[in-house]
């Protein structure tokens, strides 16, 4: 017995309707023919192409893919190798060893921390400054859902905080703008960059998508009641600047896809030469310690393939190589075991 999932019907007194089958028969009018009209469509004779996987096509397909993928792989590997990327993890070095959480949660301690890096190769501007967080599940379901996109865009929707729990309203029921855990946990470390001792401007303009600034975050919406609760999640917002100008928030609100992610902090619009010393003064405010995450500072140039990313080049080379060898393999196989194309003697009843 197999339970018939799709057809099993529950019999709760279903009376089957009866049909009246007698009309619609062609008998009534014998003069006009009942014959179905001929058309290529109704007779299923539409012109059609019937491709077959002939040995030539198989070998050609593999060879073509190989020929296409190897150069792409080489090009992207080359581009990736051009990218200069400096990653410096600072979450451990910037806090005392014993009570990390206590240290970071204490609002009065000085959390300044200085890191120094030496640039190995010439870095052409713009140099992207990222912060990299690991172990922060910005894709956690309870986290990503705790936001109100309507509130971010429409003034009239400020009270729509029901999706934002548990960071929707303050204790006295005033709506928080921007509400929700995502905004609440806004990253608040700051970086001051010195190249060879000279303070270098980190441009924090245009780090967010234009579309977000123009259409997603309201120009007339100002933060209110933000970070006023019992537990402070992260950065506070200047209540006199509209959300559309709060680019750090906009970047943060584009939740990352994966538990390890980097987000754009700003850009250094000045070339840095090889062996230059880059000193970054960090205000180490953000608490990654309570959940065992880590933080890092990333300075990176960009190429057409994005940041430093060897994977895509290697992947393309591998696929290309695989396809070329498959092409060879099939060539050999077809040579070894030939078969007459469409030979009726191969039909099972002729064998």
């Amino acid at each position, binding site marked *: 017995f197999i339970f018939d999932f799709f057809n*099993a019907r529950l019999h709760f007194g279903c009376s089957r309707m009866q049909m009246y089958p007698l009309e619609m028969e062609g008998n009534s009018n014998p003069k006009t023919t*009942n014959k179905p009209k001929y058309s290529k469509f109704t007779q299923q004779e539409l012109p059609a192409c019937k491709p077959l996987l002939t*040995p030539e096509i198989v070998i050609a397909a593999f060879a073509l893919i190989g020929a296409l993928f190897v150069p792409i792989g080489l090009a992207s590997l080359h581009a990736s190798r051009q990218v200069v990327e400096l990653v410096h993890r600072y979450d451990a070095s910037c806090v005392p060893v014993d009570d990390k959480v206590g240290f970071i949660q204490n609002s009065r301690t000085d959390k300044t921390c200085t890191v120094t890096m030496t640039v190995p190769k010439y870095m052409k501007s713009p140099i992207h400054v990222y912060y990299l967080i690991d172990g922060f599940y910005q894709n956690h379901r309870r986290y990503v859902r705790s936001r109100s996109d309507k509130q971010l865009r429409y003034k009239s929707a400020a009270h729509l905080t029901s999706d934002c729990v548990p960071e929707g309203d303050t204790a006295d029921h005033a709506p928080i703008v921007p509400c929700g855990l995502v905004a609440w946990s806004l990253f608040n470390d700051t970086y001051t960059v010195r190249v060879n001792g000279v303070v270098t401007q980190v441009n924090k303009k245009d780090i967010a998508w234009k*579309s977000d600034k123009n259409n997603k975050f309201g120009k007339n919406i100002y933060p209110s009641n933000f970070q006023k609760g019992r537990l402070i999640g992260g950065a506070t917002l200047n209540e006199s600047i509209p959300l559309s100008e709060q680019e750090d928030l906009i970047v943060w609100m584009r*939740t990352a896809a994966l538990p390890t992610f980097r987000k754009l902090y700003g850009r250094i619009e000045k070339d840095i030469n090889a062996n230059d010393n880059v000193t970054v003064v960090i205000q180490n405010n953000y608490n990654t310690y309570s959940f065992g995450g880590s933080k890092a500072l990333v300075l990176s140039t960009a190429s057409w393939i994005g940041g430093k990313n060897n994977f895509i080049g290697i992947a393309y080379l591998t696929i290309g190589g695989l396809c070329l060898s498959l092409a060879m393999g099939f060539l050999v196989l077809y040579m070894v075991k030939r078969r007459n194309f469409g030979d009726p003697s191969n039909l099972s009843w002729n064998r």
Partner: protein
Amino acid sequence: MRPDGKLPPPHPSLAPLPQRPQQATGTDMDPHARLPDPVPSPILKHSPSISRSLRSAADTSSVTFAADFRSPSKPESTSPSFDSFRTARSRPSSVSRSSTRRSASERAGSQRDLRDEDARFVYINDAPRTNAPPAMFPDNSIRTSKYSVLTFIPRNLYEQFHRVAYIYFLILAVLNFVPQLLVLSKEAGVLPLAFVLGVTAVKDAYEDWRRHRSDKNENNRTASVLADGVFRPKRWKDIQVGDVVRLVANETLPCDMVLVSTSDPTGVAYIQTINLDGESNLKTRYAKQETMSTPPEALAGVIKCEKPNRNIYGFLATVDLNGRRAISLGTSNVMLRGCELKNTVWAIGVAVYTGRDTKVVLNSSGAPSKRSRLETHMNREIIALAVALVVLCSVVSLLAGIWMGDHVDQLGIIPFFHKYDYSGAAAHDDGRYNWYGTGAQVVFTFMSAVIQFQVMIPIGLIISMELIRVGQAYFMVQDNRMFDEKSQARFQCRALNINEDLGQIKYVFSDKTGTLTQNRMEFRCASVQGRDFSETDGGEEDGHAVQADGVVLRPKTAVTTDPKLAALLKDGMGAKASRARDLFLALATCNTIVPIVEDTVNPAAKLVEYQGESPDEQALVYAAAAYGHKLVERTSGHIVVDVFGTRQRFDVLGLHEFDSDRKRMSVIIGCPDKTIKLFVKGADSSMFGIIDKTLNPDVVQATEKHLHSYSSVGLRTLVIGVRELSQSEFQEWQMAYEKASTALLGRGNLLRSVAANIERNMRLLGASGVEDKLQDGVPEAIEKLREAGIKVWVLTGDKQETAISIGYSCKLLTRDMTQIVINSNSRESCRKSLDDAISMVNKLRSLSTDSQSRVPLALIIDGNSLVYIFDTDREEKLFEVAIACDVVLCCRVAPLQKAGIVDLIKKRTSDMTLAIGDGANDVSMIQMADVGIGISGQEGRQAVMASDFAMGQFRFLVPLLLVHGHWNYQRMSYMILYNFYRNATFVFVLFWYVLYTGYTLSTAINEWSSVLYSVVYTSAPTVIVAILDKDLSRRTLLKYPQLYGAGQREESYNLRLFIFIMVDSVWQSVVVFFIPYLAYKNSAIDSASLGDLWTLSVVILVNIHLAMDVIRWTWITHAVIWGSIVATWICVIIIDSIPTLPGFWAIYEVMGTALFWALLLAVIVVGMIPHFAAKAIREHFMPNDIQIAREMEKSQDSRDANQPEVQMSTSTRA
């Protein structure tokens, strides 16, 4: 009436069913004893035995014309009324004929059985009184539509939710609203179910709209109804019970009505019941003399009739004309809705049943519901998928539990879980936010996972399959090659859910008469007085036109005559010639044929068409006409026969209708020369018992020889005898007859014994041979089917010799076959011959081990032996023999035995069975088989009504199975597997992501995309491809019937393929997920962008997968596959253009990066490599027959392209 007995039954005591106790003492017959009656067209069979036997057959097989057993059984057991006697006596002019004609119905009409509380009272011409409360009869409008505008939504939903699958999806949709679970937004959560319900609702609404329209047309037709003394047109829907309706020739009856008067002085009206039961011949109905005499305007009285019921063969009523004695009414006095009045200038009736009470509406029922083999198998895979779903959900919830255990101290503060509500502490009593303990969270995770991964069980599959079947049915119906020009019959798909079963048939059970043969009889030869006249070569094809009053009368069908016989009849002298003339006179008179004169374009020429219930009789009357004995006129009292130009009038003094016990009929006629002759015509087995062999022993001997040779060439034979009755003999008979027909108890038996009493000492006149011609293309079709590995079994009611000879002529039997004949008349001999057969089969099997030198076997078994075999539980042995044989021919089988044989195979093998037949006697077989096919032929609609598919010709079975069946099976199999695959791929992609989100079931893929995926992004290509794709052309499939074996061996859908495609699905999901994952690890990618990449790559991948498997690319296929990729892209863009969704503008941003395109290309290529490589290997190194045939087709196509003239010739052949 069927003199030859299409299905002569075995002796009653050997009936196939266990005998049930008789229903009541005094029952004049036991219906079960005569169960094997053929009786294909029972509507006007007044002989109770015949209609009874049909009903009992109908009962056991629950045919559509399921009868109401209440009414016929009761009156038989009680005493008849005197009224029928009086009625019969009151019309002495046609005493014998009319009383036989009407006896059954009148006996049934005994008013004593009709109690007042069971009756409806109809006041003639007084509709208001009739319909006054509490009667409240329905009006005459009919409503076949299910819904009205108001009730559509609730009713349609109610009906749709009868499916368990929908309940499952409903539960998931409701679960989604639990706040702890809310996986999808409220709108997105209900969308899939709403979509599926919506599409189905639109389909239902469209069908219902069509029904509404046809109802409206039907209801607004007009009929003339008596109002205030004049007949005025009135719309059908306004006709009420009690109205007097006047009809003219060729009008359709608007309701069931009792005939009160007609243009014919004797009160006869002819009706055609083609809409009721499909029989095209005319039936007679009678108005009562009492009602005839009163003008309709003055007619007043009350008709007391039974409550509406489904029995179209019975009617029970009395009419009381203003206090006069009640007159009983029966079936012969009632005309049913849907019939047409023919050959009668006008007829007037009183409406008794209207609208939904009419018998035709009560009898209509929907198509039978069967389930396809593929769907049964599909459930196995659905269970596998359900298990996979549970495993995925368990893994996720288990990991979530472990994760929460690991972080148990941090759950309160870590930003991504946030167990406590810190902002509005007062709102929640203990400050907890959606936290119910780890255990509860695990359960919630599990349920959320079920919601998230629900498409693992493809919801779209149900609706896709329905749409596909509609599409496939459309193409089957539209197929010109399955259109029967002769009957103008299109192919009909009555069952919409077993299309794909047509591709897996292993056994075909076929009826013979009307299915393999045309059931259009042709007179072939006659044995007259011991001389065989079968040389028709030199004969002219002549209908023998006769001239009368300057008008040439010509029979509609010409018959080729034997010149010698024609000469003997025309100019022969002496006793021999006069006996020969008697023979043809018997053929012209001893029947129930009605001659219908039709006008032709030439006013001086008229056509005579012989209408009757039996094709055999028609053939014989046409033959008699060709040999100079033309039936010109038949009334209830006399017959006019044109004998070589001189019109002779014969009085019909008595008539014993055909019944299947006697297997003969007889007529007593008074000749112009004042002699009284009794003509008897019947099956040889019954006739030789009543023939006095001493009268002309040489003739008897010669005739027997001729009969044998006739039946061995496949002719249906009839034997004709005559006896001159003396006046005293006749009077004696007349008295006995009247006594019998008015007897209180056991009238049927008495009448039969009266008949038997007079039908004795007959002088043999001769015999006739009628050919039931094979339908076109039957031998070729059978050969094709056999080549396709389908075993064709023929089940017929015919004699063994006839069956064997038909078997030869339709190439079922060939000369090189070894025939095993089981033809026993006792239990013992039957067992012995069965054992012999088994040992013979075993011997032959051991002799020839390899299939090449195997001796083909044919089993020929008759109904009697089957009875013994089924009785004695030796079915197993029969099965053993039967499956070893290539051909099985069952002769003299009863309808229920046919079903028994189908069941024999169905029970013991998993092979698919198909039954094809055209008559009521095939109904049980058609319903028993996996696929039932009705031939819409001569014998009415009952087979069609019970069938899943109906068509005009047997030979259409070849394109139906070999072409459409093959396609349907291949398409549907692929579609189901593909549906599993594409949904599983998507679910696995979601699953991999869940592993990187702290097991919290969030998705990067936009929730709208995830619900649209299976219903919009990927469903259209599957439906279109499954309707249009063809793995092989019609030409190839017909040329190599062996290709049909793919379906029989279940090559397109099996567990192996399922596992393969699931492995592919896992691989592709890994590729889709992990290539972008590895590329974007540590990058600044946001979830919406990555989600869009995943969405697009999975949609493109599954569509390319489909594209790779599409065999035939038409522009539609191109449009739908590439179109659905484009549509997906557009949908993603639209979704990302909504500012209030988190993923706003992501697609534009990500499409601007080179990495996106590089990843998309890499995913597609890597995803497809295994499938492509496996396909290349399979097609080249392990080609199956279909693959080779495809290649042959390809080279054929290129050859055709080079030589167009070759193409012309081959395409006409194909």
